[in-house]
C-alpha cells in the first residue's frame, strides 16, 4: 500500500463532517494495519475504502473519547513494537514478519493485548465486510422479498 493512496483517502475522509476518529495520522495507522488484517481491503475502490472508513467512524462516534485514545495508543503500540521486534516498520517487513508480529497480539498471554487486538481487528473487518456492495463478490446472495421458497 502506498503512502499517496493513504493520504488521498485521508483527504476524502477528512472532508466529511462527521469524521470523529479516522483523520490524519490515525487514519494512516489504521490503513497500514487494515492492509495486513484484511488484505481484501487493498482490492477496494477509493470510494469503497472511504465508505469503509465511514462505517468505522460511525461506530466510533458512539464510543467515548477515552475509547478513541485507547484505540490510537494500541495502534501506535503495534506499529512501534514492530520496529523493536522485527527491526523494520510494518510496511516494510516481509509477509511472514507481518503475520508473526500481529500474531503476537492475537495470541498474547496478556488478555489486555488480545482484547485490544480483537477490537482493532473487528474494526478492520467492519471497514470491509460491513459493505453490502461486496455481497456479490462473496457469493452472499440474499433471496428476493417476494421470491418463493
Amino acid at each position, binding site marked *: 500500500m502506498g503512502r499517496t493512496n493513504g493520504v488521498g483517502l485521508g483527504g476524502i475522509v477528512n472532508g466529511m463532517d462527521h469524521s470523529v476518529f479516522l483523520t490524519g495520522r490515525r487514519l494512516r495507522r489504521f490503513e497500514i494495519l487494515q492492509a495486513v488484517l484484511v488484505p481484501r481491503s487493498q482490492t477496494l475502490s477509493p470510494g469503497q475504502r472511504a465508505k469503509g472508513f465511514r*462505517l468505522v467512524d460511525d461506530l466510533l462516534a458512539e464510543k467515548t473519547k477515552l475509547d478513541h485514545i485507547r484505540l490510537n495508543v494500541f495502534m501506535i503500540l503495534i506499529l512501534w513494537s514492530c520496529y523493536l521486534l522485527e527491526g523494520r516498520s510494518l510496511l516494510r517487513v516481509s509477509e511472514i514478519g507481518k503475520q508473526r508480529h500481529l500474531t503476537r497480539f492475537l495470541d498474547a498471554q496478556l488478555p489486555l493485548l488480545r482484547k485490544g487486538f480483537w477490537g482493532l481487528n473487528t474494526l478492520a473487518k*467492519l471497514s470491509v465486510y460491513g459493505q453490502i456492495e461486496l455481497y456479490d463478490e462473496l457469493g452472499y446472495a440474499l433471496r428476493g422479498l417476494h421470491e418463493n421458497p
Partner: protein
Amino acid sequence: MKTHEYDIVIIGSGAGGGTVAKELAPLCEKGRRIALLEWGGRFQKKDNTRREIEMARKYYFDSGGFQTQSQDMTLAFAHGVGGSTNVYTGVTFKLPQPVYDHWGIKEGDYREFDRRMEKYMEECHVHLLPEDQINRNNQLFKNGVKKLGWEVGQFPLNIKNCVGLNTCNLGCARHAKQGTAVVQIPQAEQAGVEIVPFCRVDHIAGNDIFAKVVPPHMGLQPSPWEIGSHRIRAKTIVLAAGAINSSAILLRSFGSKPYPTLGKYLTCHPALMIAAEQNERVNGMQGHPKSYYCDRFVENERFLLETCMYFPFSLAKNLAGFGREPDELLSRYPYIQMILTLILDRAKRKNRVEVDRKGRPIVHYEIDREIIQAFVASVRASARIFFAAGAKRAHLPGTKAFFTYADQVDDLESIVQEPWFKPGKVSLSAAHLMGGCRMGREQSDSVTDTWGKLHAHDHIFVADASLFPTCSEVNPYLTIMALADRVAERVRTQW
C-alpha cells in the same frame, strides 16, 4: 416536565412487556388507562432493510457492540416495539420441566405452566417447517448428526408466510415472525393500550416513572409524545425492559440495598459461531436459518448445538484470526456451513449488572474454566458434525492453525485444546440474557416473588427474562411469555 397519569404502565415491549400489554388490555374496556413505554422505535416492514450494519444500528443497543466490562464477550440485545422478538429467529422451546422444578414456582405445577406455554404456541402460530422448506445448511447438520449416531431435534418455529429471507436477526422484512410487535401489541393497541416508542425510562420514585422521550432515529416514526422529560404516574408498574435494563432501572431507582441480589446471577448462554467449508454449494443464506439442534451434551457437558447462518460482517468478526485465511473463507460463502454452540451457564452471584456513575448499565461476567471447557467440547463436537456431513475444512476456535482439515478428524482432542481457547482471541457473544431480578421466596436471595412482584414494593412487578433464577437451558422467549402471563394474572387481581 410533562406529567401523565395511568392506571398501569408497562416498561418494555418484548416477549414479556408485549404479553403483559395484551393480557391486561381488556381492562381498558373498564376504563383503565394503560401505557406501554418502549426505549426504541416502531418498525414497519419497509424499515427492515436487511442491511447488516444499518439494521444493527437500528435495533441493537450499542449497535450490537455492547461488551462485558472485561471486554471478552459481546451482548446482543435489542430495542424497538417488540423488543428482542424483532430479531430472534422464532425458535420456540418449552422450558424443560427439571429447570421449572429447580426454579421452585410452587404455586401451580408444571402442567399449569405448560398450559400457558401451549397458549402462546398457538397464538404465535408455532409449527414445524415442512421438510421441503429446510435449506441445505440445516440438512447438512442433520445428516452429520445422524451419521455420528446422535439424535437430532427439529425446532418448532413461530413463523407465518415466511419465504426464507434468512435475515431474522436483522428484523423480518415480511413480518413473518410472530413476535409481540406482530401479534400481541397490535391486539393490545386495538383494545386501548397506548404505545409510546422512543421513551427511555430513567428511574422510578414511588408511583412516578421518570423518562425522556427522544427524537426518532434512522427514519423511524417519531413518538406520539413530545421530545423531552416526562413524569408518568402509575398505580401499577410492570417492568419488562430485559435482563440488563430492568436491573439497571431498579438499581437507579433503589440502589442495591433493599435487594441484595438485584442485578446478580446474570446468565447469558455464552455462544460461539463456528464455520466450515463444504465441497458442495450450501447457499445457507437462503431459507430459514434455524431448523435443527442436538441436545446430546446438555446434561453432562452443558452445551447445546444449533444450526445458524449469519451475515458477512458477523461471520468475519467471529473468525479468530486475520489476514488471507479469513478473506479466503469469506470468499467461499455459498459453500459455508455454520453451527452455533450455546453454553448452559450456571447462575453465579459474581456475574452481574451494575450501573456506573452516570447510571449506565455495565455487565460483569467471567468466562471461567467451566465455560471454556464446555466451549472446547462443543467445538470438537461441531467439528465432528461438519466432517461427518462432508466438510473439507473448518475454522475451529481453540486451535493453533486457522483451518482444520477433514483428514484431521481423528485428532480433534489434540487439535482443539483449552490453552488455545483464549477469551479475547475467540469471539464470544451472549445469546440470551437472563437473571438480575430473580424470583424466589425471600428478599435476601431474590428480588421478586414467584409472581414477579417486587418483595418490598407492592405496586411494581417484573415480567421478563430477568426473573429467571438460572438460565433456561433453551431459547427463552416462550418461557418469558408464560411467566409474563402469570404476572398479568396477578396484576389483574389488583384491578
